[in-house]
């Protein structure tokens, strides 16, 4: 896998195109879907030029398979999210249709972002299935399925959905879970309101366009005022049409927020936190089991029956057992206790390992999140500054026209 590391460090991945396709699905019914072209370029170390090494087409569902695979095999990693399956948080202009070109375009960018995030993750980038996803068009699905991850995914899913109580969870994970729940809630709220804000802003700008027409009509009956009115009207039209680009840019900001919304979903109920709980629960159960076995052993050895056991009952009903029988039982229990202690030790170790690895990745994720969101906020502010400057420009132009009336 070392050649992967080396290779992946010097490659460029892009999702460069999207194409509508029709085909037959598993139930042999015709369906329309979008396919995305993934191009991989390796960068020559000598002259920095990039050469196209691989290009293949994938559809969204294949990305999903890849992600599910990564979730199963890297439970301690915060796996990057995919862009949304269906358009959510739309404001009226954008359609919620998956075939809408704007939506497809934004999804293309989201998928590219996903691949880049995986490729830049210190652990995930080394994965062979990921490598094959980028390079092996046909047969990839079969290869993934051969890993048997599907079965693991199913059982994992079952486990994730089970309810149980953990007695001593790591406090950090509890806090993390709490944080990710709150984060999801606040970002969802933010996205919803932002969509409404965008909708209203659109209305404000567009209504100004009506001034253009009426000023033009009015200028027709005026002598000296005519020119000023007419040219001012033109600026009102410019103002009204400027909102389209502005809101287009804002969608990009919304997408950045969405990515972290989905990241937050990946943190809590699924993957990391839950996995930790599972392991912890497992550990606690094993410890409990061991403790009860030890107790039984002790009772047998000392002849006291403190705990209720079926054996104890039958002994009472059907008479005491022979010392040989007792010895045999003690031996069995002692073996089990030994095994149990070994298991507990290794489970403990496993648990601690997991916590260590998971926490390392969470720290990495936190730093990435802070960096990314700060960038997003900065570019959001820059967007608004540009919008304000445009507004000032247009109204200053209009004012000048009015002054010439």
């Amino acid at each position, binding site marked *: 896998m070392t050649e992967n590391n080396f290779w992946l460090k010097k490659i460029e991945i892009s999702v460069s195109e999207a194409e509508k396709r029709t085909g037959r699905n598993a139930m042999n019914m015709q369906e329309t879907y979008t396919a995305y072209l993934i191009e991989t370029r390796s960068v020559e170390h000598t002259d920095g030029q990039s050469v196209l090494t691989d290009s293949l087409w994938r559809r969204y569902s294949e990305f999903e398979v890849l992600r599910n695979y990564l979730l199963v095999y890297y439970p301690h990693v915060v796996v990057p999210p995919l862009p949304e399956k269906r358009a959510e948080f739309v404001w009226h202009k954008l359609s919620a249709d998956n075939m809408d070109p704007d939506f497809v375009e934004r999804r293309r960018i989201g998928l590219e972002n996903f691949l880049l995030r995986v490729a830049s993750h210190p652990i995930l980038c080394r994965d062979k299935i990921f490598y094959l996803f980028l390079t092996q068009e046909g047969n990839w699905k079969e290869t993934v399925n051969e890993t048997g991850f599907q079965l693991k995914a199913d059982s994992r899913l079952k486990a994730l959905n089970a309810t149980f109580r953990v007695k001593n969870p790591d406090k950090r994970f509890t806090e993390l879970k709490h*944080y990710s729940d*709150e*984060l999801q809630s*606040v*970002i969802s*709220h*933010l996205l919803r*309101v*932002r969509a*409404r*804000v965008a909708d*209203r*802003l659109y*209305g*404000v700008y567009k*209504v*100004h366009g*009506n*001034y253009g027409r*009426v000023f033009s*009509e*009015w200028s027709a*009956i005026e002598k*000296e*005022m005519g020119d*000023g009115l007419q040219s*001012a009207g033109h600026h009102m039209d410019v103002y009204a049409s400027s909102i389209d680009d502005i809101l287009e840019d804002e969608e990009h900001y919304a997408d950045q927020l969405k990515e972290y919304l989905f990241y937050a979903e990946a943190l809590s109920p699924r993957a990391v936190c839950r996995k930790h709980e599972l392991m912890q629960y497992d550990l606690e159960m094993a410890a409990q089991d061991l403790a009860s076995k030890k107790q039984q052993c002790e009772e047998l050895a000392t002849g006291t029956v403190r705990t209720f056991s079926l054996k104890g009952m039958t002994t009472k009903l059907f008479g005491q057992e022979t010392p040989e029988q007792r010895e045999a039982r003690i031996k069995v229990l002692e073996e089990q206790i030994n095994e149990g202690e070994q298991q507990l030790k290794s489970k403990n170790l496993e648990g601690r390992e997991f916590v260590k690895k998971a926490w390392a990745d969470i720290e990495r994720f936190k730093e990435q999140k*802070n*960096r990314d*969101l*700060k960038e997003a*906020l*900065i570019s*959001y*502010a*820059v967007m*608004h*500054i540009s919008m*304000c*400057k445009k*507004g*000032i420009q247009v*109204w*200053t132009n*209009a*004012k000048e026209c*009015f*002054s010439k*009336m």
Partner: protein
Amino acid sequence: MSGGPPKALPSTGPHSLRDMPHPLAGSSSEEAVGGDSTPSPDLLMTRSFGDKDLILPNGGTPAGTSSPASSSSLLNRLQLDDDIDGETRDLFVTVDDPKKHVCTMETYITYRITTKSSRVEFDLPEYSVRRRYQDFDWLRNKLEESQPTHLIPPLPEKFVVKGVVDRFSEEFVETRRKALDKFLKRITDHPVLSFNEHFNVFLTAKDLNAYKKQGMALLTRVGESVKHVTGGYKLRSRPLEFAAIGEYLDTFALKLGTIDRIAQRIIKEEIEYLVELREYGPVYSTWSTLESELAEPLEGVSACIGNCSTALEELTDDMTEDFLPVLREYILYSDSMKSVLKKRDQVQAEYEAKLEAVALRKEDHPKVPADVEKCQDRMECFNADLKADMERWQNNKRQDFRQLLMGMADKNIQYYEKCLTAWESIIPLLQEKQEAK
């Protein structure tokens, strides 16, 4: 609350109607308004002459009823100073100081009317009286009666139609005060109307009600004679120039109506936008409580959006208080002008009818009888007055709209500038820790 010393009144003495400079004097004749020597108590302004484009911000500390919206009256005063007719101005009228009066029967507002004049028609150089809306209404009716050949400026609407507006709210009273001030200034500006008897009494009488009860008004000759014209005559055709005026007024009123609707719609959309913004900003605040490193940046964004919201609210208030009322005023103006046009038609119709009657009599000496001559006189006077008023009105309209629309542009510019400042100021906050890292 300080104002400049009263401007020294020119000692040119009173002018008779004939000597008054024609309202068309010079293409750059500004809106000639009076009332300069008592600047509105809330404004300290730097006078910068000849700079029509400058809308001055409030120079001093605003008090009570002040607001940037007074910039329109500010500009009025500015143009006044710039006026080339300045030397001939000898009458200044201001409306200010609204006060609420609570009586057993009713509650109402009065405004202080301050007059300064060197005209011989005024016994004293200065007057200060209190008037309420119905007094203004009375004055306008009297003017229409006594000067039917002239265009009488409109009053702000008597009743508030739209929505549940508080008649005694500061905004409503201020909007009305400005409109009443404008009304009186337009009359002051008019070479004929400003000498009207009723106007004089309105400005000076201690007890206006007593005068009202008199019911006797001194009408000008023209006024009296026009009053007696019954509507029995039908005009064959309007002369071209008056037909053109009529058509113009029709289209003008239509376009203004459309602009009024658009402006209202914009304000409505802006208010709805504001509602959403007021929910949007605080969500960033909530988010910041979850974060550590991002807490300050998020809080900064929240505050920034708050500032933009405030700026937007100021914009919508300004537009509602200053822009819409002036539009509506002009629609009323053009309506009253159309009725004056109709009256003119009546006078012409009477004349033509009488002329025709004479022609049909088949007299040997086709000498035109005295009363037909009188009719002709009347018609020609009316036509002249109306034409002169129309040109004056066109000029003033141009100035008023120039100012109004520049004001609108200005308010929007100010709004964006406030938002720009807010966003620019958080960039360093957002970038800060990153560099420190």
